[in-house]
């Protein structure tokens, strides 16, 4: 069982990294032939960085758009971020002080993560407009993440699992020195679904993670009159057609 999980998680990690890298390479290679920032847009690269940061960290557009979706969505994502930080301790031998301090509040992030996801699920099921646009996979993602959060909560607060053994297992994973894993049921479910999440991410709508930063509507500088923007395939058309010159 331990070997199966070790293999599964190793493969899952590789699929995640390779799949995501391939997608990112694809996104960066496809040209953006025209300037299409949604205006008002920043006039400098620094301004664009701020614009993207506001979207990635605060979900600024979503806040403007729908307060409930923002509330649940932001709560879920920020909680997940804290939960991930908390899990770093499983991969670091000597846990640094900030992570130890974070642990005190961080362990409750699983609850806010669950509440956020539940809110999103309720919205998806009961708001007719959102229901209309939902495929089975849209529900399954929320349920999968909720079960991951729930099993985490169970292990932390109800049926404690052997954390020391898990840490040895996870540290071992990184050096391909596979250790024994406790066989608690919640842990088995937790890790299996996390592996599934990592494997499916590069083939799913979770590609919104890199996608957010590659949207030309948000990542382009508003300077088309000052700087001539020309992409690879457009440049070929340009060379061919752009022959009229003043005499």
């Amino acid at each position, binding site marked *: 069982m331990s070997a199966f999980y070790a293999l599964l998680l190793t493969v899952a990690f590789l699929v995640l990294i390779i799949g995501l890298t391939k997608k990112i390479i694809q996104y960066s290679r496809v040209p953006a032939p025209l300037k299409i920032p*949604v205006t*008002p847009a920043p006039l400098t690269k620094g301004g664009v960085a701020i614009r993207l940061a506001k979207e990635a960290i605060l979900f600024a*557009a*979503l806040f403007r*758009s*729908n307060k409930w979706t923002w509330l649940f969505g932001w709560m879920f994502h920020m909680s997940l971020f804290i939960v991930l930080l908390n899990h770093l301790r499983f991969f670091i031998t000597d846990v640094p002080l900030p992570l130890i301090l974070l642990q005190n509040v961080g362990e409750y992030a699983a609850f806010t993560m669950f509440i956020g996801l539940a809110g999103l699920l309720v919205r998806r099921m009961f708001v007719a407009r959102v229901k*209309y646009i939902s495929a089975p996979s849209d529900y399954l993602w929320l349920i999968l993440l909720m079960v991951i959060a729930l099993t985490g909560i169970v292990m932390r607060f109800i049926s404690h699992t052997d954390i020391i053994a898990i840490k040895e297992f996870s540290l071992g994973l990184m050096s391909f020195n596979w250790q024994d894993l406790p066989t608690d049921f919640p842990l088995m479910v937790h890790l299996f679904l996390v592996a599934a999440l990592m494997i499916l991410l590069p*083939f799913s709508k979770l590609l919104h993670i890199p*996608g957010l930063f590659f949207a030309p509507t948000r990542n382009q500088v508003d300077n*088309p009159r000052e700087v001539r923007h020309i992409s690879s395939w457009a440049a070929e058309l340009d060379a061919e057609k752009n022959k009229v010159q003043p005499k």
Partner: protein
Amino acid sequence: MADFETPEFREYPAVPLIKQDVMAGNGPFISRAEFDTDLGYPGELPADWKEKTLEKMGDLLGRYRSLQVFMDSCIKCGACTDKCHYFIGTSDPKNMPVARQDLMRKVYRRYFTFAGKYFPKLVGAVDLTEDVLDEWYNYYHQCSECRRCSVFCPMGIDTAEVTMAAREILAHVGKAQKYSNQIIQKVYKIGNNLGLPGKALKGILEDLEEEMEDECGVPVKYNMDEVGCEVLLMTPSADFFAEPHIDGLIGYGKVLHELGITWTVSSKASEAANFGLFIGSYENIQKISMRIREAAIELKVKRIIFGECGHAWRVAYSFLNTLAGPFDFLDQNYPIPQHILEVTYGALQDGKLRMNKAENDHLTMTFHDSCNVARASRMGDKPGGQFDIPRAVIEASCNNYVDMDADTIKDATFCCGGGGGLLTDDLMELRIKGALPRMEALKQVTEESGVTNIAAICAICKSQFTKTLPYFGFEMDSIMSVHQLVSEAIVMTGSMQEKELDGVDDEAESDE
């Protein structure tokens, strides 16, 4: 006229409940083969349409980062679902931006992703059939490419990019729209969207000059094909005869005359609008844009100024440098290209224009931000100049100005309902229903603040409002050009208006 009911004003503009398939149908008239072939399309459904469709889709996915990223990154959060004026006006769920994108995304997933190839039901992927194409044709012609949804999308997904790609794909399998393609063909053959030949245009401009001489007593010039002027004026051809568009053209002429700037229009490029944008064809956008470069070179001008036209200004501001540049033969001391409002605003700032606002005292104005100016371009040197500059010019021209509700202006502005290639009679029902949110916002300020008129800076908005205002109980002529207000208020040096205002030369006047 189509058989439909004008939507009623809602007491509380709440989000409508979805009503499936209320806008199902065949879409606008399909193009005739002759228009298509001139634009480089087949003009009929080829036998291998399925392969052709997927091939073109793959081609576009490899050419446009926007399309590739947007196909992947939608999380179906629903933020956009209540943002489209066509959804608000029709309640058809396929007019929710995400659902509109999904028409293509479902096919993308089926043929271009692992999940959709092997688990189509799970991720909502569908097979490409002719019915799917027909549905694309119908619903991708219920999008005015106004980008309002993209403002609210947490991923920055712009449905306009998807609509343009869909129309481009459809055109490659013989399902192009007649309205846009016929117009583009007219641009290539005659020089403008309306098919107005050079001779007729010359006649109109000469009449305008006579009219100005009579009304103002100063020789305001409206040149055509005059070599050696400082400025090439690119303006939508509707400005040459439609109301209230032409009153805007009169205004540009007065401003440029007062500033001592010589200008001309070109009979060859007598159209600022670029319908290549609507059909999503880079090649056609570029070909149409090249006329401007050629005209500027032939007429030996130093500057290019654009009149009031929304999509034209998007193409001019955002794309012209890319498509037809570099413009190193023009005067680099001015923005290339420049908007007429930037010229007027700059002159007002410098105190070069004398305005008698009292001329417009019978009006209480509001301003409709045209979608493509608001969300796809800029004016001036600051972000948001496209909102501030038109308002500053209006307020310099009249004493009474009120903004509409904050959720319906600036970058949250609603499309007029007729943009993006939909300004055609065969889509009248859609146009009227899509105008509902704007009409409601207008209604509110007429009741609360006594607004009498609405100004716009887009030929399509002006034409669309002329049609839609009466449906909603407003006067047809309450839509005005911004430069119409300028034209009424401006006091040109040596004009009758100046003499009247300053109370001199009254006798000389009456002696005439």
